[in-house]
């Protein structure tokens, strides 16, 4: 049983969150993400959840972390300036290993930038916006359907790996309407965090005896434990001992990066015989798909690789592409953020990486990509 709905990207994210079991939303109004909050304000009370609007972006993130500590599946959504304000808390959630999902509907920046126009300017901020070494999972859907599906996946990953997960969409995806087929809840695979199996007095919140992701007890079920943003040992209490801190730093990265193969989502199109592969994500991937089809018609063997899991970036897959393909083009609605990552992933390979950048609020059109393809392939 399924039903078809016409939804905007923002609405699809709210619906996806409900399917994933989200029962808490805390946030703050900001264009172009406000519809997510509005939709959650409507949907959550009907589904036994709680919506609270907070006094600012920082509090929106703080309350989500607090709710998650009690066992709730928490969501917050924002855009550029709000994402900047949330960074300290994102670091806190990474350090304390609290599952939470953050949606960032990207708009032009820096600062207030262009609130009502699309951009992909927060790609590096999603990875490195908060201070300190860390790894983080960032998903970047390129359609309304994907916004729905990857919101569910984002919750699953947050629960599975005890980590904040960021979903990046751009303003175009957020506000355009597309058909979404929604199945009954049992159709979707929902994952929940692992709870401790030991008695409360034996519980250590960062005990990694059985794997790099420690079980997380919800506040309110009798388990008493200490949470701090300071470096800590397995009991959760602060520790500055070099060995303990080094182990923690390594585990926070390793617990995500070593499992990348389980969640490295992507879309590939005609890459097998491609002489040039376009690496595009978000709404640009849609233009790139059309550009690949058009390019094939004029004799350019082009292909598309859409890394939906933007972070951690899959270097291995890039290096596999480079065995056969010698040309890569990275079109982005920013001044060249993923292009750096693509270049570094192909370091030492004899390939050319070209870029096509636009950060003026306009979409990158298929014809612009095709023109660039013709230029670099000398057609």
């Amino acid at each position: 049983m399924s039903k078809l709905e016409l939804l905007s990207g923002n609405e699809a994210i709210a619906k996806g969150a409900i399917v994933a079991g989200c029962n808490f939303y805390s946030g703050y109004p900001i264009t172009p993400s406000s519809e997510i909050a509005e939709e959650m304000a409507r949907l959550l009370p009907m589904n036994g959840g709680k919506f609270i609007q907070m006094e600012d972006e920082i509090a929106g993130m703080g309350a989500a972390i607090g709710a998650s500590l009690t066992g709730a599946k928490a969501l917050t959504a924002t855009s550029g300036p709000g994402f900047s304000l949330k960074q300290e808390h994102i670091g806190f959630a990474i350090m304390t290993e609290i599952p939470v999902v953050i949606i960032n509907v990207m708009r032009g920046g820096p600062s207030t930038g262009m609130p009502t126009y699309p951009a992909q300017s927060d790609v590096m901020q999603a990875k490195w916006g908060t201070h300190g070494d860390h790894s983080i999972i960032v998903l970047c859907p390129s359609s309304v359907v994907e916004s729905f599906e990857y919101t569910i996946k984002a919750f699953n990953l947050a629960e599975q790996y005890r980590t904040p997960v960021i979903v990046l969409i751009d303003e175009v995806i957020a506000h355009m309407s597309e058909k979404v087929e929604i199945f009954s809840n049992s159709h979707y695979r929902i994952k929940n965090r692992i709870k401790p199996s030991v008695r409360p007095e034996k519980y250590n919140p960062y005990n990694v005896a059985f794997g790099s992701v420690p079980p997380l007890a919800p506040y309110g079920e009798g388990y008493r434990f200490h949470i701090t943003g300071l470096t800590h040992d397995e009991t959760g209490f602060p520790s500055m001992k070099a060995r303990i801190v080094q182990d923690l730093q390594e585990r926070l990265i390793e617990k995500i990066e070593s499992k990348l193969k389980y969640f490295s989502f992507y879309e590939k199109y005609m890459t097998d015989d491609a002489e040039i592969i376009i690496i595009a994500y978000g709404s640009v991937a849609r233009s790139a798909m059309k550009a690949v089809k058009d390019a094939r018609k004029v004799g350019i063997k082009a292909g598309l690789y859409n890394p939906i899991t933007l972070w951690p970036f899959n270097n291995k897959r890039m290096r596999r592409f480079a065995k056969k393909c010698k040309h890569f083009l990275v079109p982005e609605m920013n001044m060249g953020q993923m292009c750096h990552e693509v270049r570094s992933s192909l370091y030492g390979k004899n390939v050319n990486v070209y870029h096509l950048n636009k950060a003026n609020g306009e979409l990158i059109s298929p014809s612009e990509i095709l023109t660039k393809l013709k230029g670099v392939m000398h057609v």
Partner: protein
Amino acid sequence: MPTIKELTRTGDLFTSGHRACAGCGGTIILRLLMANAGKNTVVGAATGCMEVVSTIYPYTSWDVNFVHNAFENSAATVSGIETAYRALKKKGKIKKDIKFIAYGGDGGTFDIGLQSLSGAVERGHNMLYLCYNNGAYMNTGIQRSSATPFGAHTTTSPAGSKIKGKMQQRKDLTEIMIAHDMKYVAQATPHNWSDLSNKINKALALNGPAFINVLSPCPLGWGSDPAQSIQIAKLAVETLYWPVYEYENGKYKINIKPKKPKDIEEFLFVQNRFKHLKNEKELIDKIRKHLNEKWNELLNKEKCTN
């Protein structure tokens, strides 16, 4: 205080051509603010309707120096400008007397900007902070704020069959500002231009921080007739929804005391944001009771401080 005739001669420093909705209270307030402030003024704006509608490229309504910083920062930014001005004035590099105004909507003042406003006041910068208070985040599509009144429908406090709009009372920011031991704090509405004008002049004449909280009718967010904005602002005062008063050097003064206050329903039901309360006697009683308590509290404060 200048007469209205004199005010018309100051020239429009907040000019026409802005993109505000018909019946917007905010632009009326800003126009009066600038007519009183005069040319030698620096204005800092928080993100919000009044920033957006007055500065659409390549036009500006502001015939003075104008800075827009992010949502939470207008008081902090003006703090910096005012401090630099004082330093330059001390060194004799600036001779003119310059006034400093920071403004924001209720979202940028009551919520995200409260910290920077409080800090600016505590440090004692010579600035007037004016809040145009329309009781919700109108710029992003009418989400509730801590200034949204009890029972109001907004997109994030939607009125349905179970929950009847926002279920919390609004924050009393004016009292919070008074608690900063400021020399001058006031509440006003645009329906009484002479009272508002008077308050702006008092605030700007001070050497130190002043705060004015001005009720700003918003036809779009309130679901009211744009032609009736000023009338609705007047009703807000007559129904005790919005007491017009000032706090000056430790003394409260209620500027408008309705002889026979009108019932709150007269204010509520000219606005669609309250229409779901029509048959909710208990909830209306709750609003009425809260407003009466606040009004009596205010009368007592006036009595005690005079």
